[in-house]
């Protein structure tokens, strides 16, 4: 076996990297966790909800120490038109008690906490260190990483690339296919400060209860979505925008956030708040369709680097997929090290684990969702259709009698120029995807 500095090097101390490092350290392997920011989580942002149940095994009772803001006990899905809003609002007190469901959290808090768990178990964490390239042997197998530190080459038997959506490691290793902007969205967010009591009152919650509002139809001509999440004394308000549409429509991201904030259904929730931070991040949106090869000789790819975000309209998840893939990468690496085979074949346990768990099962089940949710009809016509039908149902137009539902749907469909065939086809796709 060649001389190495560590059994494994993990690039990126986000949720995937810290979970991988934890598994490896607990198995007694030497592992170095590299982070380019000044602390773990400093480069990371998202809309705002994390689903940590995957940590039940790794960190039992995680909810007693994880730095969360609020437990999501109200989940709203909102359809907006220029002047209308239709909201489906679900509340359950069960999600406000152990083992909980989703939580709002600041990623710099949450990711930092997960990294401290890895170091507590024996992983070495080196921050403020950017990986600038891979080390490879004559066969092309990955044998380590080059960092921007003096004498910064680090040799390892396995490199786990958890270096985020732009994953220069996976690209350099040739594991990513051609990059297509259509597979990505841009998430942009304002953190808006308001006193906790004001948030509690406006969102109808108490204590650590929180609200998750997912919005479709709020981004004008740019396909995408919007969101409002409650933190303790800030709101996260933002938009997610399909990159090619954003470029083509000549609307700037911050203008689209301002437009969402000014909508009559949103304005009363956010007004008077002070912007505490403006942030942005790219999201790998296309799911299964854009995933790289997960395994190379001496290398695994996990988290956003492997395009594992699940952007399926009513389900918007990513941190849980990152943590699960990190755990799987750690376990497969332990297995490969024990067997003395860190080639692609020796590391095959990684993909087997992904295939057997929710990570790829959810992605396979929802493989049609990203395209459907971001399609022009779902984005621009169906919000108007649904809102028009509901407005027609509840408007009392006496002396005219109430119109039947079928007539209302037909009237709105024709007004918007939606072909019956397209509506039926999208309905079938929707049922196949979400049913």
């Amino acid at each position, binding site marked *: 076996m060649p001389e190495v500095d560590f059994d494994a090097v993990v690039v990126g101390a986000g949720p995937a990297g810290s979970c991988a490092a934890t598994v490896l350290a607990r198995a007694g392997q030497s592992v170095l966790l590299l982070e*380019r*920011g*000044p602390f773990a*989580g*400093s*480069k*990371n*942002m998202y809309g705002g909800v994390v689903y940590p149940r995957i940590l039940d095994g790794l960190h039992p009772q995680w909810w007693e120490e994880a*730095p969360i*803001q609020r437990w999501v006990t109200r989940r709203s899905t909102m359809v907006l038109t220029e002047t209308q809003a239709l909201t489906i609002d679900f509340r359950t007190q069960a999600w406000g008690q152990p083992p909980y469901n989703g939580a709002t959290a*600041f*990623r*710099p*808090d949450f990711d*930092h906490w997960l990294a401290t768990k890895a170091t507590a178990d024996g992983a070495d964490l080196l*921050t*403020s*260190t*950017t990986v*600038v390239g891979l080390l490879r042997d004559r066969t092309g197998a990955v044998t380590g990483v080059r*960092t*921007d*530190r003096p004498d910064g080459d680090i040799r390892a038997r396995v490199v786990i690339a958890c270096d985020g*959506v*732009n994953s*220069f490691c996976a690209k350099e290793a040739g594991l990513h296919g051609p*990059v297509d*902007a259509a597979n*990505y969205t*841009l998430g*942009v967010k*304002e*953190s808006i400060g308001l006193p906790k009591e004001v948030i509690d009152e406006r969102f109808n919650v108490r204590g650590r209860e929180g609200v998750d509002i997912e919005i479709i139809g709020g981004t*004008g001509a740019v396909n995408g979505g919007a969101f409002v999440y409650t*933190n*303790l004394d800030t709101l996260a308000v933002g938009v997610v925008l399909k*990159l*090619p549409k*954003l*470029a083509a*429509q000549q*609307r*700037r*991201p*911050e203008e689209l956030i*301002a*437009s969402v*904030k*000014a*909508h009559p259904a949103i*304005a009363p929730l956010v*007004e*008077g708040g002070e*912007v*505490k*931070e*403006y*942030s*942005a991040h*790219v999201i790998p949106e296309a799911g299964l369709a854009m995933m790289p090869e997960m395994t190379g000789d001496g290398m695994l790819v996990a988290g956003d680097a492997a395009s594992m975000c699940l952007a399926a309209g009513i389900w918007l998840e990513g941190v849980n997929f990152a943590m699960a893939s990190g755990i799987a990468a750690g376990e497969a690496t332990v297995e490969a090290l024990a067997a003395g085979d860190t080639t692609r074949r020796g590391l095959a346990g990684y993909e087997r684990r992904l295939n057997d768990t929710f990570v790829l099962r959810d992605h396979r089940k929802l493989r049609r969702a990203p395209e459907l949710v971001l399609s022009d009809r779902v984005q621009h016509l169906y919000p108007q259709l649904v809102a028009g039908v509901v407005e027609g149902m509840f408007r009392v137009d006496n002396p005219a009698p109430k119109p039947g539902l079928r007539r209302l749907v037909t009237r709105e469909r024709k007004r918007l120029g939606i072909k019956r065939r397209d509506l039926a086809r999208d309905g079938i796709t929707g049922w196949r995807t979400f049913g």
Partner: protein
Amino acid sequence: MTRQSEWPELGFEELIGSTRFDVHERAHIVVDGAVCADCSTRECVVACPAKLFVPTSDGGILFNYEQCFECGTCYLVCNREGAIAWSYPEGGHGVVFRRS
């Protein structure tokens, strides 16, 4: 949509001024002005959330790297091969998102 809120929105400078950046002296974005000069679509100008790409009166593009979110939008939307060379800033530098 041209909806306006009823209270004053922050100007862009103030908005991005709310975010912390520990800027390194080396630019991590390099733009080839010659390639940009004959680009008419200018996707980066509208899409960059940090508004780092600004058209100049002589038909070129002025760019900054200092207040960069390191998101990658610019090179993803760019249709011109070789126009934008993009890497991460030196370790410990660049954007630092806030803890609670």
